[in-house]
Each structure stands twice: as C-alpha cells, then as structure tokens.
C-alpha cells in the first residue's frame, strides 16, 4: 500500500529552485533512505513534507488514517496526521528535562481538557500517569530512563539525537522522518542506532524516511534509496542498484 504520493513538486525561494519536479510514491512499512550531496534539497523536501514550507507548485498527498493533501498541511497538524520528524540541527527543548521533552512529543495524545488542567481535577492525575508510564517505557527502550530528569542541553550529542527520535515516536506516528540521525555519532553509536531504527520499525509498525550521509548506515538499513541532486530526483532503487548507478557515482564524485 502506498502511503505517500508526491506529484510534480516544485519549491523555489526568490527564483532559485530548491526542489523541482519531484514525483514519487512510498510504500507502507519501508525504510527509505534519502541521499544526495549537500544542497541537493533534501532538508527542503522534508520541510515540504512537514508543512514548514508550502509547495510552489505540485502537491504531496498522505494516505494514512485519512487522505490529506499539502494544501492542508500545517506544521502543528502533521503529528495529528501521523507524521513526525527530527531535525538536522537538533532542536530539543534545551531547558526541559528528557522526560518533559518526550512528553511534548506525546502532546496530541493527551485527552484531558483545559479546565481539568487549571483546577487539577481527577482526570489530570489519571492521564498524566498514563502518559508518564508510556513515556517511561519508551525511554527505557532508548536506554534513557536513568537520564529522564537531566536537562536536554546537558546530554552528550549522541543521546540528544536519541531523545529527539524518542520525542518523535511519542507522538505515535505512522511515518517517521529522520534528518541525519547519525550525524555526530561515533561508529559504535551509529551501529546501535541502526539496530534501534530497525527495531522501532518492527515494534511500532512504521514507515521511515531518513536523510543520511553515512553510507554504511543507509546501505545496511534501507529497503529503498532515493538520490537527490540539484533539487531533482536523480535515481531510485535498492542499495545494490544505487551503488552501481553511474549517474549517482558521478554526482557524488563530482564532475567526470
């Protein structure tokens, strides 16, 4: 089942085309790698997928719980549609603890109303406890439980990346967009991350799209790889196909 359809997508900033003529379909349950040289438009594409930018032309359609087109995208609604993301330049809530960060991810799953919160009615305790239990469970799988009360800014880089993924997962998404999840990690951490992503895909029944420069991670993890170059879709295929694609090799090696 396809869950994402992109049709003739264009995005330009002041005349400069950042993304042009993208067409693709993504199947449910896959891990898709998005690679390409710097400035190829990968992050812009993510921002289009999450409503931070709106397309100059063309559209994006999700077929998740319901069918939604990019006209209705707003960053704050994407979670409701089942799309969660992480950021290339980690955007954690620095002065909040790990636990609080992940609770923000859980935001849309809270059920009690404003009145309950202002007067701390019994519903508050019930729902906060539920949320706490779920989030703690999540933190344990990420090996972050003993750091739950540490301020996010005090964590090492690798763990900050993990918190960001945990935060995105707490929103219970159908599609997870990871923007360079392994950036700044050492090989050991990268290996762990690879396993973790594989595991969460199974456990949470997710589709994952990830931007990554670490080729070993991409080749190990992805079922399907998409290559961007100068804002256009250069190639798509299995890891083997991509590794042997002369166009891709040319783009990566630069020139001839």
């Amino acid at each position, binding site marked *: 089942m396809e869950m994402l359809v992109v049709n003739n997508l264009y995005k330009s900033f002041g005349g400069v085309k950042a993304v042009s003529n993208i067409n693709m379909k993504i199947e449910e349950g896959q891990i898709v790698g998005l690679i390409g040289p710097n400035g190829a438009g990968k992050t812009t594409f993510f921002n289009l997928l999450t409503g931070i930018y709106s397309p100059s032309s063309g559209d994006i359609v999700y077929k998740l719980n319901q069918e939604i087109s990019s006209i209705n995208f707003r960053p704050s609604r994407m979670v409701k549609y089942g799309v969660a993301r992480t950021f290339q330049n980690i955007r954690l809530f620095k002065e909040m603890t790990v636990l*609080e960060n992940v609770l923000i991810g859980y*935001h849309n799953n809270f059920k009690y109303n404003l009145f*309950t919160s202002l007067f701390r009615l*019994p519903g508050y*305790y019930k729902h906060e406890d539920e949320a706490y239990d779920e989030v703690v469970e999540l933190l344990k799988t990420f090996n972050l439980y003993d750091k739950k009360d540490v301020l996010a800014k005090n964590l090492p880089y690798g763990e900050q990346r993990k918190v960001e993924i945990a935060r995105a997962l707490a929103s219970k998404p159908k599609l997870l967009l990871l923007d360079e999840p392994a950036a700044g990690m050492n090989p050991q951490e990268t290996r762990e991350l690879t396993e973790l992503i594989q595991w969460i895909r199974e456990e949470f029944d997710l589709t994952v799209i990830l931007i990554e420069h670490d080729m070993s991670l991409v080749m190990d993890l992805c079922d399907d790889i998409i290559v961007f170059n100068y804002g256009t879709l250069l190639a798509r295929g299995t890891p083997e196909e991509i590794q042997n694609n002369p166009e891709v090799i040319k783009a990566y090696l630069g020139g001839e």
Partner: protein
Amino acid sequence: MKILTKKNIYTLVLVLLIYFLVLLLSNVGIIDSYIQLNMVIVGINIILAVSLNLITGFTGQFSLGHAAFMAIGAYASGIMTAKLGQPFIVGVAVAALSASLAGLLIGIPTLRLRGDYLAIATLGFGEIIKIIGLNNDYVGGAIGLNDIPRYTNWTWLYFSVIATIFIISNFVKSYHGRACISIREDEIAAEAMGVNTTYYKILAFVIGAFFAGIAGALYANYFYFIKPDTFGFMKSIDILVIVVFGGMGSITGSIVGAVILSVISSFLQGFPELRMVIYAVILFLIMVYRPQGVMGDKEFKLFNKEGGLSGNVSSK
C-alpha cells in the same frame, strides 16, 4: 485518591492556618493598617508578576503591556462598583473577563511577532489603552475615577493570590503548560511535535490577562482612586522587573521578587531625593550579578514528596 496526599493536606492546612492567623493578628491590632496596605501592594504585585511570568517567563512571549490588562481590570471593576453599584464579585468577574478579552486581542500580534518586536507592539498596545482611558469622559479621563468603594480586604486579597498561584502553577505543570514552555524553548520544534503554538500563545495571554484584571480590580477597590497614568509603561516595567528579578519561569521566584522589591521600595521611601537613583543602581547591580534572577527557573519547595518539611530548592 492522589489529591489527598499528605503534601496536599499539609498545604491546605497551612493555607488556612495563615489565613486565620493574619485575620486574628489584624483584629488584635498587631497587623495594623500600614502593614495591611503593604500586604495589599505585595499581594497585587504577586498576582501581576505570576501572571506575567506565565506569558513571558514560561511561554517566552516578551510583553511590555501587562499594566494595560491591570488598567482594564481596574476600570472595569471601578465602573461596576462605583458607577453601577454592583457588588464586588461582579466587579472582579467583569474585570477578569474584560482583561482576558483584551488578552485575546493582544495575543493576535504574537502570531507574527516575536522578541523585541513583540515587546514594542505590546508596549504600544499598553499606551493605546492608557490614551483611551485619558480621553474617556465616562471614567473621568485624566481626572481619574474617584470614590470607588473599598471592598478589597484580607479575604479577597489572600484567596485571589492563592487562586492565581494555584491555577497558574497547575497550568504550567499540565500538558498545556508544557506546551507553552516548549514554545519558549523552540517554536519550530514545538510545532513539529503537534503543539498548536498559535493557540497556546494566545491562551497564555488570555490567562495572564485574566489574573492581571483581577489584580486591577483589587487595586481599584482598595485605593479608592484610579487614573490612567498609574497604568503606564513604567508600571509594566515594574512588573517585568519583579519577574526577571525573581527568575523567569519560577513562580516562587515571582513571589520572592514581589516581596523583596516591596521591601526595597519601602526602605527607599526614607531617601526622598535619591530614591529613584538608588533604585536604578540596585536594579543595575541585580542584573549584572544575578541576571537569571533570585531563583533562576527553580522552585522553592517547602515540603518534599512524602510531606515532610524539606525546605530545599529543587528543579521543577
């Protein structure tokens, strides 16, 4: 039931104990009218500071127009009680509601503005409210509104302060409040996590203005007399100073800040010529040596989780 924890019961007992203790001390004359007046000033400042802290300290929306909400509350209650002869409860209710309506209005620019630009826009809003007051003959214009009945007493003051602290600290510890804090930390990430930042920014203004309106009502119905000048730019700054001095994002900080700054102000009354010069120097020294405020963003806890006395400072 989680509500009936030891801690909560102790707190409730303490709250009532202090209420009756002050009542008793006032009746026997140990707390005289001068102390009462200062308690009213401190109490009103606490309400103002805690409510501004929600907007600026927790949600990160830099506001220089908080006095305007107070003005709206003061005039609303003044009109209700002095002109229309309504009981105080009506005055307070109308004050709070009309101020929060104004909060809704000023919340709208926050959708597009942030940081210093928002500060300037809220400052402008505050001045506009003041100018409207100056030119409205019904409420006396520059002459002010006089002979407002004094309804504010210890009971009203105390329970308004308690209600403000109770409700706002409940709010910031709920998922709604956490959403506000996440906006302060990183608006884009908050959006991406599904926080409707528009809604929460306006909500913070509405709730903050609601309590500032109550503070205005308490003010008008204690001091008998209000004039638009009282609620100018400098009043907003005074409130902001309390919040920053106490610590942005710390409710106990706002309380401590309100108390300490009132003490400083009383102390300076004895230096008539140099009062404001010394105040400026104190303000400057505080900002240089303790820019994060007395409490930082920590809360002071009197009871630990089990309900014993702890008196330690802990992270919220």
